[in-house]
């Protein structure tokens, strides 16, 4: 899952980038509203975390421009402006959720999980469920037939992305774009390695290879 964090406070952004990375998200961080307006619309993010008080361009305007341009990526507003009038303005501008500072870091993670599942049309359950698997995002492990299976960070990222897109054909390019942030060297072999390891742990039939097209998770057509 690749997220865009738009936040002008450097210490807070550092903390968030660290905590979100620990939880298996690829993060791009921007501090300026104008940069965010451009990059948010051009890169394939799965979710955007947006502060409202930004230099360059106010967050609400950035959001309005994205929505006017047809961007459907879920946006979570993270702001100190917590009055209900401001929350309503945020929603009217096209936000999908609103979290006020200060917040508990776990609260932010839960909101991000819930928002991602909602964006992919999945019910909001405590665990992410797909293809006969249950994924525990807090512990970064999965459960199959009542047995816990430990995952490495890379395997967890990949499995989560597959489980949020069950039954869909995903190309290798698409996977790299959504699993790594803009600054990481992209090596498609790494994806193949992780897929092979996942097949080893969870069964070969779980991830199907379509030659020349990509991969499909979940068995059903």
């Amino acid at each position, binding site marked *: 899952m690749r997220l865009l964090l738009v936040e002008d*406070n450097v*210490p*807070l952004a550092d*903390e*968030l980038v660290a*905590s979100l990375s620990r939880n298996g998200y690829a993060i791009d961080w921007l501090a300026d509203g104008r940069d965010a307006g451009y990059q948010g619309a051009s890169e394939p993010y799965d979710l955007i975390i947006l502060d409202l*008080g930004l230099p360059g361009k106010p967050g609400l305007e950035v959001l309005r421009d994205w929505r006017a341009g047809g961007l459907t990526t879920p946006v979570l507003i993270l*702001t*100190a*402006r*917590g*009055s*209900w*009038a*401001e*929350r*309503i303005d945020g*929603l*009217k501008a096209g*936000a*999908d*959720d*609103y979290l*006020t*500072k*200060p*917040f*508990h*870091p776990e609260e932010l993670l839960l909101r991000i999980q819930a928002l991602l599942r*909602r964006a992919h049309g999945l019910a*909001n359950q405590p665990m992410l469920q797909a293809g006969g698997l249950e994924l525990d995002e807090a512990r970064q492990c999965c459960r199959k037939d009542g047995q816990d299976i430990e995952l490495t960070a890379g395997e967890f990222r990949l499995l989560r992305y597959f489980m949020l897109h069950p039954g869909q054909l995903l190309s290798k390019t698409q996977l790299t774009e959504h699993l790594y942030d803009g600054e990481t060297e992209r090596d498609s072999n790494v994806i193949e390695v992780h897929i092979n390891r996942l097949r080893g742990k969870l069964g070969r039939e779980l991830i199907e290879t379509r030659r020349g097209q990509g991969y499909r998770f979940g068995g059903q057509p």
Partner: protein
Amino acid sequence: MKSIQRSLSLALIATLLLVALVLVQTSLWLFESGLRRSLETDLREETEGLLIALVKGPNGDQLDVQRLNPRYQRPFSGHYFKIELPERTWRSRSLWDASPEWPERAGLADELLDGPQEQRLLGYRAEYRRDGQPIIISVAQDYTPVLESFARVRLSGLGLVGFALLALLLLQRYAMGLALRPLERARQQIAQLQQGQRQQLDQQAPVELQPLVEQINHLLSHTEDTLQRSRHALGNLGHALKTPLAVLGSLVQREELAAHPELQASLQEQLEQIQQRVSRELGRARLSVDVLPGAHFDCDAELPALFDTLAMIHRSGLDLRWQAPAGCRLPRDREDMLELLGNLLDNACKWARSRVELSIERSGDGFVLLVDDDGPGIPAAQREQVINRGVRLDESAEGHGLGLGIVSDILTAWRGEWSLEESPLGGLRVRIALPATR
């Protein structure tokens, strides 16, 4: 209440009445004194005629009836005389058997004399001397027709005055209405302002009212600007305080600190306290406390957005409903009302199993707001405590503390009252009574 219209009318009536009475009475008096002077001349000539009718006959003085005016012969004709000689007295036949009190001094009598048949007589006495003997001739003329016509004139004069008064009053009322129309318009606009139906007074006012209207408008926009500025500044302050708090909150979760659980817990607790305090005080400072008379909350425009926001923030599957009278406008500041309802409904959503309802009803002049949920509710014994201290009943579900504190602040500022009850839905009902006037 003092009305300009009424005091002007009263002044007009008093002035007109005074002037009219003085005018009528004075003109009558002047006219009467002129009339009397001319009558006096007539009467003196009558006495001279009578003196001529007094002739020397064979038996001394005698009255020549031939020379007398016939009206002295007709009974109660209104013209009478009495001639006194030292040894004789003649009375006119017209007197019949009446004997008025003839004047005792020469000249016109000051008082009217009582004549026969209720007549009022104007008397005149002349004293002559012929052949060495005094002759006193008194004549009198009926004055009743003059008195009657005076009374008629006075009556019709008063009638005219009354009519003029009425006409002038109507005219004045009309002119006043015309002149005061801008004032009346301003009054209506201020009433609309208080009901939240407008934000400014019309600039189109007559020259005399222009400074007042401009001053009020200036005050209104100045107050609104000040409120906006202070809210903006508070927003910035909140941003400046809360972002570092968020960083601290995140830092406390670090693994390095996890090795010292006591230290971590203590830091967390202190941070929590700072956060609550900051949120509460910033929230309180944001309240407009109704400094703007035109402020209002339009239910139909604001509630759908508020409920969309609530539905977005809380899990799906919650049945959120609201009902309010059609076109309902609460005379309260929009942001304050959103804050109040937002916090109450947010709490209700956190605790509800499946349903949350808001209903707004008119009650007399004011409004009653009911927020219902079907959650676990609060035992009757603890409700008072929740209201009084805004305490947090359950640490695990945040909300029943801070949010209610701000609700309490807003209601205190509005002089509203609130109570917690058992909801027909099974959970908690918050009942808020808002007075109409601020």
